[in-house]
């Protein structure tokens, strides 16, 4: 049990997917202008990433490995993720319309979110067991949400500040992300 807690802390804070592993930066900058969209995106990522992490792990272990088809991993994973996202979208639309309305437009964007694909690949690369892959996927997703929501909070404050013209928008966003990343950098060496 203790091992899983340490793994979770390391994935959420120390190896934060956005700020230390540089994955998923497009939605990080794209959806962080407003708090609402940031929360929506964060929830959608948690939902899909856990499912995708588990399913790609199963695909790798029971399908690709026994048949020696690891070279097809990229194609297989992206197909699994794309169809999973589509399936989740249809399922939510039919059975939980309230959640669908909340996540709605963020779901299709997740297919090309490299955080999802990245975590699936990290799970395989680190040779995690099933439980470890599950915990790591969830923890990475929580880390993504945490960083995204913190960043959205900072960005809303920046709107009130007077930023020099050439620095505006994405440019100041990246510099701010750098500062936030510096804060997360302090966790390095903790686990």
């Amino acid at each position, binding site marked *: 049990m203790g091992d899983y807690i340490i793994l979770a802390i390391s994935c959420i804070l120390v190896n934060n997917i956005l*700020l*230390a*592993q*540089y*994955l*998923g*930066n*497009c939605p990080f*900058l794209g959806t962080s202008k407003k708090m609402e969209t940031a929360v929506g995106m964060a929830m959608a990522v948690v939902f899909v990433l856990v499912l995708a992490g588990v399913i790609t792990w199963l695909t790798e272990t029971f399908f690709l490995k026994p048949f020696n088809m690891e*070279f*097809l*991993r*990229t*194609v297989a*994973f*992206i*197909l699994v993720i*794309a169809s999973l996202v589509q399936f989740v979208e249809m399922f939510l639309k039919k059975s939980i319309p309230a959640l669908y309305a909340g996540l709605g437009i963020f779901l299709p964007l997740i*297919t*090309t*979110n*490299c955080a*999802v*694909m*990245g975590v699936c*690949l*990290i799970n395989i*690369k680190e040779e995690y067991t099933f439980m470890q892959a599950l915990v790591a996927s969830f923890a990475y997703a929580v880390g993504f949400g945490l960083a995204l929501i913190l960043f959205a909070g900072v960005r809303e404050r920046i709107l009130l500040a007077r930023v020099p*013209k*050439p*620095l*505006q928008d*994405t*440019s*100041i*966003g*990246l*510099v*701010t*992300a*750098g*500062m936030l*990343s*510096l804060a997360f*950098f302090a966790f390095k060496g903790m686990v």
Partner: protein
Amino acid sequence: MAKSITQEFVKGLWEEIPPFRLVLGLCPTLAVTKTIQDGIGMGVATTFVLVCSNVLVSAMRNIIPSKVRIAAFIIIIATFVTVVELLMQAFTYPLFLSLGIFIPLIVVNCIVLGRAEAFASKNAIMHSLADGLGIGIGFTLALASLGAVREVFGSGTFWGAPVFGPSFHPFSFMIEAPGAFVCLGLMLCIMNLVGKK
């Protein structure tokens, strides 16, 4: 077709140079620009995928039904990414190791899918080829320049050769994650200053 093939090629080098003008494909930009070699390696790999997928998407644009086009594009891209991955593993093994999971992640690089959807699916093969090549070379230039800045300040070397005297203390902030964000942010700012329209 308003623009000539040359114009399609040139626009990727300045007007629409990713990731400065089109803010897409940030993950590889931030992650693999610790050194200039890694930056160029990633740029070339992405260019290859971009050109091949643009040509194939453009060639098949009338066959693919528009309902399943995104899925079809992703499979085309994934195929070429696998090709690149295997080629790099065979011929440039050290580079393959240092780029790590970012090679398979070219498949979810928004630049590639973005060009397939926004350009190649609507234009002729030669134009798509020029567009892919232009955007790819632009991306490589951007990665190389970011890689050069980070390598010179972060480890005090350029292409592995030391630039400063032995008394130089490397500014290791630059090669870590925070430095990547700040450096890209400032480069974006310089681009805005220089290329204001």
